[in-house]
């Protein structure tokens, strides 16, 4: 082993140690941020008007994209599944297959991923920009609580709006699926819907709802954390928006795995 390798080892170790320390410090800060949310969100005065406004913003920002994506996902999924099922002469199972896939997994996941991109980034950029231009400080010095007004309202709004959007996505995706089934098999709408709901259980609906709530909370809290704690300067705003999307998407997949695993125990 040459001398350069032996000297670079401590440097690498030092860099790794610093990164690990930063990671845990950040984890601790996020933990404090979440605790602060629960401490402030459910204590009066409630900013109901602002929560409603933010719910509207979340809905409006994602509505078109979610409608389009939901429909296409349902249509394509049904179309792609047909050849495999037709090999066994089981195309009549298509509605059941589509409903299980959409209601259990695709609707909450697709909605959350789109919302993370549209809403999460927007929250990160908006709060980041407010931090950079001292608007958050201005709220603080004028005797108002910026955390309550900016963070709590946005997190509550995403937690409320994402499950509603996910339910909507589910029905739109089923509509896409129905269109494909009706065109190819000539199945009536009533028969399709009967077959859609037959295999679904109470656990499916509850796990899907819980998943959407968790995803919504994640999108809101990550976006707000990134924006609220963004660095000074325009670079900080960009980083906040980017960090909001990347972190939220990563966490959504982790949560998906965990919730599917937990829901499996109740089936």
């Amino acid at each position: 082993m040459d001398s350069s390798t032996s000297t670079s080892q401590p440097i690498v170790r030092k860099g790794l140690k610093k990164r690990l320390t930063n990671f845990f410090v950040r984890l601790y800060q996020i933990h404090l941020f979440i605790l602060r949310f629960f401490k402030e969100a459910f204590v009066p005065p409630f900013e109901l008007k602002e929560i409603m406004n933010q719910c509207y913003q979340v809905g409006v920002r994602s509505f078109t994209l979610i409608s389009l994506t939901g429909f296409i996902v349902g249509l394509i999924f049904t179309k792609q599944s047909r050849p495999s099922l037709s090999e066994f002469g089981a195309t009549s199972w298509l509605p059941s297959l589509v409903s299980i896939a959409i209601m259990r997994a695709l609707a909450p996941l697709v909605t959350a991923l789109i919302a993370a991109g549209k809403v999460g980034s927007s929250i990160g950029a908006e709060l980041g920009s407010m931090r950079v231009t001292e608007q958050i400080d201005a709220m603080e010095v004028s005797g108002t609580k910026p955390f309550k007004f900016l963070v709590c309202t946005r997190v509550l709004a995403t937690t409320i709006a994402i499950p509603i959007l996910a339910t909507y996505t589910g029905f739109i995706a089923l509509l896409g699926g129905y269109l494909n089934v009706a065109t190819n098999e000539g199945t009536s709408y009533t028969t399709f819907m009967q077959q859609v709901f037959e295999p679904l259980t109470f656990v499916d609906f509850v796990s899907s709802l819980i998943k959407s709530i968790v995803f919504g909370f994640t999108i809101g809290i990550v976006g707000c954390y990134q924006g609220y704690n963004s660095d000074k300067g325009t670079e900080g705003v960009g980083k906040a928006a980017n960090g909001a999307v990347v972190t939220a998407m990563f966490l959504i997949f982790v949560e998906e795995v965990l919730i599917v695993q937990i829901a499996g125990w109740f089936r």
Partner: protein
Amino acid sequence: MKKFKPHIDNNNAVIRIRGLKKAFEDYAVLRGIDLDLYQGENLVVLGRSGTGKSVLIKIISGLLKPDEGSVEVLGHELETITEEELQALRIRIGFSFQNSALYDSMTVRKNLEFPLVRNRKNLTRKEIDHSVEEVLDAVGLLKTINQMPAELSGGQRKRIGIARTLILNPEIMLYDEPTAGLDPITCIEINELINEVQERFKTSSIIITHDLTCAKMTGDRIAMLLDGQFQRVGSFDEVFDTNDERVKPFFDYNFIQ
């Protein structure tokens, strides 16, 4: 415009700072500051960029915590104050930010209403509208009431920023670089507005600036911040009547000469 003669109560310090120190990582910005702001006085804090002038008023308003020393504002020691007390105290302090910090998603009216509706909960709609119009009139910008901040000029934004702090009738005003980035005529207008605020609202103010015209027009007392400490405190002429090589260039390079 010649500054009016304010009534300054030298026995009543609304802000009392002793041994204030603040460092960012290894860089010590404030290195033991002592300062009194008297009732009714406009105190100008002069200094070069990066000397900690803004840090000082951010500590006074509770946005930053000091490393050492005591800061007493309107009889409240900031080190021992609770969160609720600090919030109540902040209503009595107006903070005008360097870049105005107007809420860019709200109209001028909403910007001014925002602190009012959250801190004076018993006001009727009519009273809120009246207060908003009154302060806007005081800064001469009533016509901008329904405009968005993006539609305003730099000078107008400064005025609206000041109006937003005045709406809560503060006892102390903190101005962070009130004339930065403005043309000379607008600077004079802002300086006159600062004096009007002092006269009409009976405020005591700290004005952070490196603009000597602003200092001369608005300051009853000047404090020169050098190397993290107040090196010279007194009237404008007293501060600049010196051969101190750290102070002289400040005066020599300014257009007031």
